[in-house]
Each structure stands twice: as C-alpha cells, then as structure tokens.
C-alpha cells in the first residue's frame, strides 16, 4: 500500500494589512500588495484547528498530530493537545509540538509521513514596527494528512537534508521580534546548502527537473535567489500573503496541490538553519481530491484594517480599555470537565425526546429525563441567526461586539460572538459556521472556545 498525503488544507485568515497603509502610517514607502494577518482572537493554535478541521473533513481520526510553529501560544504546555481536543479525538493518540523555528514544518511533515498522522503547520509572524519581518510576514496555517490507502494524492519519492550552525536569525523566548545578521552573510551561507540538498533529493527521486518547485526560507533573498536556479517546468503562483514561517511551506505546497495535474513532481525546499529538500509526486487521485477551499480563493479579497488596529490586535499598542471588569481566567477543573464542550462544541441529545443541548445537560430541557443523554457533536453543523444584537458596551479588541443567538441544524441553540464580521454582515437568518477562537487571555490563561462567522 503506498503511503503519502491523503488530504490537505489551507487556512488564511480574513484580514489584511496593506503595504501602502503600513508605509504611510510610518512615513515610509508602501508599494502594492498586502500581508495576511490573524484576527485579534486567533493564534497559531486556533488557526491550526481551522486547517486541521478542513483536512479531516472526510471524518478521518489521525492517531498522531504534529504541530509546527514558531509562535506557540504556550510554552511548557503541549499546544497540540488543545488541537487534539478541538478535533474531538478522544483520549487516545499522540500530539506533539515541534515549536520554535520554521524548520519545524519539515519535522511535522516527515514525522506524519513516517508514522501516519496529521501534520499541522501554523504561524503568526510579527516584527518590530517598520521592519521587513512585519511588512513581509504573513499569518496562516495548513494541514496534511498522511497515511496508506488508495486515495493517496501525493507520495514522497525522495528527500535529503543539510544542517549548518550559523547566526542568521534568532529570537530569545519572551522577545517580540527576531534578530538578523547581515543579509549577504546569510545568503552566502544558505545557497550552497540549498544546492546540495536539492540535488541529492532529486537524485534520490530519480528525476532531473521537477514540475513544480517551492523554495521557502525565513531568509527571503536566499529563497528568491535559489528559486531562479531551481526552476520547475510549471511556474509557481505563490499566494501573496507574506512569508508565513512554519506555515509557509504548507501554504505553498497546498497551493501547488490545488492546481497540479496527476503524476507531476514537486520539489519542496525549506531552508532554515540548513536545508531540507523533499520530492513528491502526485497521483491520479489528485484531480478528484483537491482541498475544498483553494489557497488562491482564500488569499484573494480579505478585509483591510488600519495599522493602529493591527498593532492593537498584536498587543503592541496598549489601548485604554472601557470601564468593564477584566474577564476572569477560565478555571482548570471546570475546563477539564467540559473539555469536549469547550474545545469541540459537543453537547448532549436526549435519548427520550431528541432535544439537543449545548452546553451538555444531564437533565433534559424538553422532557426532564435525567441521565438519558447521548453525545451530540455540533462543531460541523450549519447554524442560522435566530436573533442578534450589537453590543457597544462590551470589552472587545475589535468593537463593536456582535452576539448572535444561533440555531443549529438538527437542534441546539447557543449565544455566540460573531467573528470576522461587521454589523452589516449579520441579520436574522444569516448562515453561520463555527470557528475555533481565543476569546481572550486572563490571568495568563488563554480562553479557547468557539465563535460563529458568516459562511
């Protein structure tokens, strides 16, 4: 049985910071284009959940999750465990963070390819105001499910790696931006490594020129320069959302998979503290198993925000808050008891009368029966606005807050914040889908839960 990628997905957040907006805010040049930015209520964990949910649309339950990011929401706590919970994978299985550098992306892909499982690549890129990291970075996530099966859409043909220790880019924990050495120093260090690893990978795969070539690196000039040498037969149409760190190889691979024909080769080169080159080949199955939401579609459009909004969302602008109490940190034991509710939006359905309850209840709201309940997993169900309101008093980093009473297909109702929308996007009857978000952080604890967004 061939092993390879069974399904894949990409998630690009809704918001954009235009280069022109950034430039004019800081009195610098702008230029065309924009970068993708995560909303104030997203982080690498929530974006990872989004990508993972999409990749597992067919109901697959991977036994292992490998989560790569350079911006983990927590240290000293496995962020992949939260993703595991959000995917309602129960108590069995492996979940691992490969956090810290962009090379983690390769780690996640290789581990998933070797053992079977889901590689989740997610990143949030920030730099000091006015830096190229800020301007040229991008926030996104992608996921790849590996395993055996007839539906493998791409297999790994060969790979090669080179590793070198040199001071090109670094960041100490707790600092908000990375340091970089002179650009030409890094360029000179990277190019030989890229050439070496690529040629060995191609040789291992038995091909001379790949159909598609992706060169991803935190050293943007090294990537551009190498890409002029390693040319694929098909020109890459990389999404212009910015360099997405550990998610970058994923987003660009997903973009290629969105368009590649059957039996085409892909050379994926990731240059971060070395170079890892992987050669894949698509199968017949690719043409009928594309991701539901292509990268190009997600990358286009998007809602632009002001630079001050971006800074506020990133916590770089400490704004005056309304006179409302700070939210309370979610408590450990209640959150653990309600894990499947809080992380996976699982409620209960009465076995006697069919009433669906979110959150879970032991005593039925409909018929009063006690402990006659079964699980009801609602995260994937469609919702509709029963009624809603715009709250201008509530504390929010992106006011005004919109709260909607959402009725779910098949039963169940809950009041949720509406994400990624303004008052003009919401009305009674608007179709909504659930999205996993970080509501706020209080007492050092992130409060993860769900919001609803217009479909």
């Amino acid at each position, binding site marked *: 049985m061939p092993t390879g990628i069974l399904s894949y997905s990409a998630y690009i957040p809704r918001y954009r910071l235009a280069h022109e907006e950034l430039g004019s805010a800081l009195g610098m040049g702008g230029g065309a284009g924009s970068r993708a930015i995560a909303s104030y209520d997203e982080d690498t964990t929530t974006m990872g959940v989004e990508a993972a949910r999409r990749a597992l649309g067919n109901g697959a339950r991977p036994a292992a999750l490998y989560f790569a990011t350079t911006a983990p929401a927590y240290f000293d706590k496995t962020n992949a465990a939260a993703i595991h919970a959000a995917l309602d994978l129960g108590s069995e299985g492996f979940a691992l963070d490969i956090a810290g550098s962009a090379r983690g992306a390769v780690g996640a892909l290789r581990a998933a390819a070797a053992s079977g499982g889901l590689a989740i690549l997610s990143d949030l890129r920030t730099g000091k105001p006015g830096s190229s990291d800020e301007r040229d970075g991008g926030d996104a996530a992608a996921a790849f499910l590996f395993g055996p099966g007839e539906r493998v859409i791409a297999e790994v043909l060969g790979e090669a790696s080179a590793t070198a220790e040199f001071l090109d880019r670094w960041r100490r924990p707790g600092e908000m931006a990375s340091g970089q050495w002179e650009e030409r120093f890094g360029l000179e260090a990277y190019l030989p490594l890229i050439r070496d690893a690529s040629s060995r990978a191609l040789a291992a795969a038995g091909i001379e020129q790949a159909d598609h070539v992706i060169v991803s690196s935190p050293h943007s000039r090294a990537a551009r320069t190498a890409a002029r040498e390693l040319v694929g037969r098909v020109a890459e149409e990389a999404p212009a959302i910015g360099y997405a760190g550990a998610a970058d190889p994923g987003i660009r691979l997903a973009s290629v998979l969105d368009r590649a024909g059957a039996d085409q080769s892909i050379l994926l080169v990731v240059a971060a503290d070395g170079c890892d080159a992987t050669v894949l080949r698509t199968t017949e199955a690719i043409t009928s198993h594309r991701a539901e939401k292509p990268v190009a579609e997600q990358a286009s459009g998007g809602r632009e925000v002001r630079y001050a909004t971006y800074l506020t969302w990133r916590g770089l602008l400490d704004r005056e808050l309304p006179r409302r109490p700070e939210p309370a940190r979610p408590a450990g*034991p209640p959150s653990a*008891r309600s894990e499947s509710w809080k992380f996976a939006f699982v409620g209960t359905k009465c076995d006697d009368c069919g009433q669906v309850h979110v959150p879970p209840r*032991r*005593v039925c*709201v409909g018929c009063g029966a006690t402990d006659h309940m079964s699980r009801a997993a609602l995260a994937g169900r469609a919702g509709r606005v029963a009624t809603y309101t715009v709250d201008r008093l509530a504390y929010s980093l992106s006011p005004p807050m919109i709260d909607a009473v959402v009725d779910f297909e098949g039963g169940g109702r809950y009041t949720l914040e509406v994400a990624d929308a303004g008052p003009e996007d919401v009305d009674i009857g608007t179709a909504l889908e659930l999205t996993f978000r970080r509501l706020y952080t209080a007492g050092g604890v992130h409060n993860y839960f769900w919001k609803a967004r217009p479909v």
Partner: protein
Amino acid sequence: MASHGIRDRVAIVGMGCTKFGEHWGRSIDDLLIDAVGECLDSVEDIERHDVDAYWLGTMGSGTSGMTLSRPLQIENKPVTRVENYCATGSDAFRNACYAVASGAYDVVMAVGGEKLKDSGYSGLVVPPASNDGTASEASAPAVFSLLAPAYANKYGVSEADLKEVMSRIAWKNHRNGALNERAQFRAEVSMEKIAAAPLVAGSLGIFDCSGVSDGAAAALIVRSEDALRYTDRPTYVKALAFAAGTAQGPTDPAYDFTSFGEVVASAKDAYRQAGLEDPPTELSMAEVHDCFTPTELVLMEDLGFSQRGEGWKDVMDGRFDLDGELPVNPDGGLKSFGHPIGASGLRMLFECWLQFRGEAGARQLEAPTLGLTHNLGGQPGACVSFVSIVGAERGVAGA
C-alpha cells in the same frame, strides 16, 4: 428579644449527602443533582415535582436560585439563595423551615453545595466586596490560631499541653471519620503524626485544619403533622437559633479570644426554644464547627458542654469521644468529613438523621434522641453562629 422558635412544628422526612472530597470530575451541577436525587430517593412518596419551594445555600459556587434550578431543570418553583459564611447551609435550612411552618408551602427542600476545588487556590477564597484595602488579609488558619495562646494563657495551660489537647481533638475526629464512607479523609491518624505535622499558622499544623472539599447535601422538610405520611422516622426540628455579632471583637480591647459571644447567645436561644435545661446531659450528640481544633475546644465551653477553663480536661478525658458521655462530631466533623461551605450545615443534620434512624453503621450511638448542630462563620470576635436542636421524637425534649 422575642425568639419563640417553632419547636416540633416541622420535621425532616428525607435527606441526601454526597461524599465530600476533591471532586475534580464533578461540577456544582453534578453535586447538586446527586444530593437532591439521593434525598428524594430516601423517601417513597415524594417526587421532584412534589417539592413546592427550595432554599439553596452556597457561599461562592453560584449566584441566585438558578444555580439550582438550571441543572435540575426546576420549572416554576421558588428557589432562594441564602448565604451566611460557614453557616450558609444551616441558614438555608432555617429559612426553609419558617416557610413551611408559616403554611406558605407544604413540602420544601433545603440544599447546600460548594465547589471549593474549582478556584485553584489553597484553602478558602472569599472575594471581598470593593473596599479600601485596610482590612486584614490574614488567612482563616491565622485568625483562628489566635484562640490557642489566649486560652492557654487565661486558664494556665502550658503550650505543650494545649498542643496535645488540639491533637486529641484532631485524633478523635479522624477516628470517627475513618468509620464514615462519605468522609473526605477515612484513615485514623496517630497523635504523634498530628503533633509532628508542618505548621500552618500559629501552633496549628495541617491536621488542626479542616479539609477543603467539594460536596452537597439536601433535606426535605414538611410540617410535623404531615411527617408520618412520608416516613415513620422523621427528624423533628426543635430549635433554630442564629446570632450575628457586631464584629467588633478584633478591635475591642475587652475581647480576649477565648470565647465566641455569638455562639453563647445562639446556644442560649436554641436551648430555650427547645426547652432544654441541662443540655450536656439531655443531648445525645453534637455536630459542631471544628474548622480548626482550638475552635472545637472553645465551642465546648461556649455551648455549655464544659465549664469555663475546663474544656481541655474534658477533651483529654475522652468525654466527647464516640464512646464518651457526649459524642461530638461523631461523623468526623469538618476535620475529616471536609468542609464544602454551603453543604456543611446540612451534612451535620444528615448525621443526626442517620443516628436517629439507626443508620449510622459503625458510628451508631445507642438510642440517640436529641442532637445539636452548630456552624460558625467569620472569625473570632466577628462572626455569625447557628445552632439547631433536632430530635427523634415530638414532645418534651430530653429523656
């Protein structure tokens, strides 16, 4: 003051009590559902819909009556929340009794519950109302630890002897708790281990402090004339007394930290309501508020079980042991049963209930007829005190 009481006018006809302990996997909803369920199961002819009104006692695990009506899906019934520090559950019970005695309702339930283990903090967490920051931040063990040196000093007891007395109280209550399947701590603890435990505040060690736990308990109450419809062994309520002090103790030079005036006053009121003349002799048992070991010592004197300054001798003589003349905290007390605030007062009534019905297993006393329950909330010199007297029979109290 006119405190006539409602002696023998109402009776408990059903009770339930969860295990107390660190229930990480159970929410306040679960505990309330369980306690109410057990309570209703203990009596044949009462279903949930037969209960006319509820009184819920919880100090910090929920606000309003919906804390009970939501998980139980109670529709269209009154649910009142009562709060009175550690006397919360008892005061919920008291108010439920008055409502049924007044005739407003026929069948009522008093429920108490607390989820202390959700806060993430060690010990009690009582978020204060907005204030000027000048009030003492001293912990509960610290303020109660002040009783020990004051008592020792006043009555000429050496520090070492008093420590032994405190340990004896802890030893007794753990011994009793070891016989109680619902208690948080169910193992006997030796005097040596108690004495050698790390200190928490003053001379109080870990074993001198009551357990911090989660739990819930419930009681069904009807008018006495209806009681025999539901059970042939109701528990009759003979006295309900409550006293809130002026809270001046900590700033009053005359307060000497060897007595709780509120306890003395509420006990007096309770004995009068019940018609008791010689309480230590007439009472078969007492469940008192042993939040800390020196507290129980002082309570023996404030409740009139011992002469002033002699309580410590009575403790060492075993007078209050399970097989002593007046068993105190036969179910293990706050010490080993645990102290989920809103539930404690009802848990004490539960032990009386079991004892009167001959259902106390290894702790069973011989033909008990009258019991006292007591709760204390606040701190020495600034507290509230509740005392109830309950009995197995209607009519004249005592033998």
